[in-house]
């Protein structure tokens, strides 16, 4: 009889990873299924290139897993903790090496078949995100694309909700102005 981890909360899954060697792998797989795409999306959008995003994505999960193994207390906000790891890694990476110009060829990532139109949209969005400052880009990705609430975003970044709102709103305006010539055509086709 196997446990259906899909009914478990994030906190419960984190505890299973910490305490049960037998169930650890499956609990981790469940969390990976829940947040893998979000973390990967965050890494790619913030870093701006596939190579660094892949490295940081893998490192994020390894650190998360190691932290779970050493954890002695329950973790209330697993997703927030996961994004904090990813964010710290991205910030360190950007701090170590100044970010190079975006190579749009790197944005053909994804395991599904990507149409030319989809690729074009990805490149436009990447270019739009690239014009944002790092702080604005991070907030915009997490809130506007990932749908993370401001209070959760505040816990991860340590900034006030008002400051985060200001960043998201400004980033939203900048991205919209940049993409406005293309948005109408694209959304009309879909």
């Amino acid at each position, binding site marked *: 009889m*196997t446990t*259906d*981890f*899909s*009914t478990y909360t994030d906190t419960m899954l984190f505890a299973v990873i910490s305490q049960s*060697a*037998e169930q650890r*792998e*499956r609990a*981790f*797989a*469940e969390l*990976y*299924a*829940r947040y*893998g*795409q*979000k973390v*990967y*999306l965050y890494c*790619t*959008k913030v870093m701006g290139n596939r190579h660094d995003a*892949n490295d940081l*994505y*893998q490192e994020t*999960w*390894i650190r998360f*897993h*190691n932290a779970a193994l050493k954890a002695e207390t329950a973790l209330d906000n697993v997703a927030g903790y996961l994004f904090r790891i990813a964010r710290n890694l991205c910030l360190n990476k950007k701090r170590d090496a100044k970010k190079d110009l975006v190579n749009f060829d790197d944005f053909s*990532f*994804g*395991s*599904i078949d*990507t149409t030319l139109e*989809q690729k074009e*949209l*990805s490149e436009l*969005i990447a270019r739009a995100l690239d014009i944002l400052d790092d702080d604005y880009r991070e907030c915009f990705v997490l*809130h*506007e*694309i*990932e*749908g*993370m*609430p*401001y209070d959760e975003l505040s816990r991860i970044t340590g900034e006030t909700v008002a400051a985060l*709102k200001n960043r*998201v*709103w400004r980033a*939203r305006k900048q*991205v*919209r102005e940049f*993409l*406005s010539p293309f*948005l*109408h055509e*694209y*959304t009309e086709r*879909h």
Partner: protein
Amino acid sequence: MTENDYILLNDYLDGALDDGREEEFFGEVARNPVLRRELNGSLRLRTALRMEAASVIPPADLSSSVFASLGYAQKPANILGAAFLQWGGYLGAALTGALLVWFLMQFGNMQIQPQGQSVSQQLLTVRTDTVVIPAPAQQLQTSPPSFAKEEATVPDDERAALNKRIATLEAALRNQSRAASAMAQRESNRAEQDNQERSILASERDELARRLAEAQSALATLNEQQRLQQNQELQASEQRESRLAEQSNTLQQTLGFETGSPMRPVQFARQSELQKQRPVEVSVRQLLLRSSSNVAVESNDNLGLYNVAVQGMLPDVLPRIIPGLALGIEFGREQFVQQYRDVLNGQTATITQRPTLWWGGVAARYGIRTGIFDNAVMPIVQAGGGLAESGFYYRAAVGLRYEPVQSVALTIGFEQAWLNYRAGLGTYLSTQNGFTTGIGFQF
């Protein structure tokens, strides 16, 4: 678009509008075409972003790599399916919002009369019964859909084998962790060593900078000293030149020339020499008689041929009154030969006289320096008179005086003279004229 519109729009997109403000927002959207356009653009953007986001998933080999690095053999869950489930909901909501905006754009100028429902609900209810009320943004942020993963039934022996393998892999992972810790320690040591080297290099750089500053300071001091020395030398040179100029002016004034005279240096030197006349000049003078006469005899055929005299002159004894005028005292002894015919006892006889006599008197000489031969040649007018042994004498001459070197003078000219002389038992007056030459030496 006003500031309030901007806030309402973003709060709506953030799902932060309560019912009252949402009603206000949609009322404004219905009235304001600019806000309507902004809302439309924002929803289009969100739709595009989330459609694109749905395509960004970790590659399968990356997920496998993650699991393998953790020692897990399990195939990663189907993230793609989960993503579609998750983002599909988002996209549906976003597209619904876009549809709302389309309605608002089509019928945005209609009257809004809230009656228990929100404005958007009213709008949609009025226009169509089939349109679903758009989900506010907050609804877009609901928890991701659960991921359904199939459970596999594993026999006990396989489970035991798997557990054993897991234990092995965990041990390998621990070894990896220890290796990673050791590597981190090595990196830390290397960083510390780098810091020490940087510190040493920084101190060496500071020392070099200090030495450079000292050298620059010393060089600046030397340059300043050199400059001061040059200034002093320049001042001394100027003072010397000033003294020389002053001396030159004084000399020129002393010598009777105006300062700034265009006279050439050689002329000036010559003039200076000529001005320094010695007090005594002794000259030898010869007069080639062209004619002479003797008033005491009947016949006065002039056969006199020459006249030689030695005379002295003191040109600087009397003060010079006019430049170029010399006054002096002259004296000398003269011998001349005079030959004439006379009738004695009815017979004509030729008589030759060679009188020698002393004479002395005063003389004046005026010369004009014209610049010829650097003022060495000057026209002169000379006259003198005095007493001879047998009476008075007078003499006048014009000619040229040439002073080739200092203290030597050559003269040439035409002279007219009257002279009383004694010869035999008689005293005679001789009138003489002719070319005269002479040479004088000053002492």
